[in-house]
């Protein structure tokens, strides 16, 4: 239940609003950079929400990995290829109605599921942060197999990336000079 006498509820609600507005900017903005910056706002809001839920480590992982690395790469990639200041008209396309319907039904579905299972749970103040040591124990103890599998997938992705990006040196025939 939403108990608005608790300050935590206010903080969580404001963060939720920030996430919603930034998410809206991401999908509606006609400028690629604005959309990416909207994503920064949405992720920052999510990190804040994790902090409210005492998941300190997850919150800062979100900041370090998503804002500090993934989005920096996004922005870097956009700016180095196509980054006109102003508005990009081709960003909209005809399928936006279907996309809106899809997103809307997903929203209804997840909020129904969340309300159905956690509807009666109230946010009760900010507790002590979850110990990172416990998290590490769980990751390298009980969940070590999924953890290693994920690392393996990431390694495969890394090798795939290198394979796609590398240019194999073509052998130079005799008499030919390298350009």
């Amino acid at each position, binding site marked *: 239940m939403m108990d608005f006498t608790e300050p935590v509820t206010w903080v969580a609600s404001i963060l939720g609003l920030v996430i919603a507005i930034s998410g809206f900017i991401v999908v509606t903005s006609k400028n690629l950079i604005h959309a990416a910056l909207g994503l920064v706002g949405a992720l920052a809001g999510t990190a804040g929400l994790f902090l409210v839920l005492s998941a*300190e480590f997850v919150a*800062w*992982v979100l900041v*370090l990995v998503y804002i500090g690395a993934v989005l*920096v790469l996004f*922005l870097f990639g956009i*700016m180095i290829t196509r980054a006109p*200041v102003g508005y990009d008209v081709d960003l909209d396309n005809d399928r936006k109605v279907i996309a809106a319907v899809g997103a809307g039904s997903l929203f209804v579905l997840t909020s129904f599921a969340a309300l159905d299972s956690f509807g009666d749970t109230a946010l009760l103040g900010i507790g002590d942060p979850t110990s*990172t040591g416990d998290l590490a124990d769980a990751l390298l103890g009980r969940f070590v197999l999924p953890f290693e599998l994920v690392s393996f997938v990431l390694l495969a992705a890394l090798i795939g990336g290198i394979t796609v990006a590398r240019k194999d040196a073509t052998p130079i025939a005799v008499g030919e000079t390298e350009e």
Partner: protein
Amino acid sequence: MIDSVVEFLQGNFWALTALKLVAILGLIPVSGLAIGFAELKLSAKMQNRVGPYFAGGRWGWAQLLADGIKFIQKEDIIPADADRPVFRWAPALVMVSTVGLFVVIPFWDGGAVADLSIGIFYVLAISSISTIGILMAGWSSANKYSLMGGLRAAGQLIAYELPMVLAVIGVVIMAGTMSLSGIIKAQADFSLFGWSGFGDQPIANFISPFFILQFVGFLIFFISALAELSRIPFDMPIAESELVTGYLTEYSGFRFLFFFLAEFANMFTMSAIAATLFLGGYLGPFVNVVPWLGPLYLVTKIGVLCFLMIWFRWTFPRFREDQLQSVAWKVLVPLGLANIVVTAIFKVVM
């Protein structure tokens, strides 16, 4: 009188938070101006000049204060083609990262605004936010020099964040904790990999800084810090002669002051973090007997590291862009990985 004030503050969360905030907001300009002035004077000394002389009457001590007031008075110019909201918010984002770094520095035992259990992880996370601000500044200026500067800055910060994290991991393995105060305390007992030869006499509070056993880590961290701060020899993002100061080109007045202040305040915070991780932070002889020596030791260590940075700036030429990238990826990253492996083996074996 003082006791009742302390009691009031300890009982009142919001008053204490407000006080800490004011202290940090005061410390940022003070540290920034102090280091900026040190840079002016030291560079003058190294080049056999006098440096600032007239402002303030003696040694030109008020030079940067006057500069700051001048910046505040200036017109806030936004280029006609600029993306106004992004242009306006970029300096603020860079400043957020700086303020966030000041929060966790332990100035004395228990003397940090927030002693997080994952302190060093937080430091790495929050310092990566400034990259977004720099990219925003570079792009929104609608100027090719600014864009190039912003892109160079981003490429450089991505490349050097990795070795920095790797260097920190060595320290975290040694200390067994990610909390900044825990890392300092791990340097307090005189033990090499668990071997404490001298017991815990008061003088044992003399430090065994990680600087000794993690010397490689310290080197990697310091080089990466120089690159993250865009200081010479890594100042390609703001190279005057190539990019007319890169992403700063279009900024003037107060917004320029924000970038300027953040740059020098970040020198302070980066040195403080390096001092905490590798030089024992506020620890020093007799600090367990006379606690107020702690901040003095910390500021001294920060001063030494800042002096090194200033010295490098006025002695070394600028790297080339490809040299910068190959140093990061081909030298520092493998070295950092090797450092982790060796440290981990020693930690387990000894």
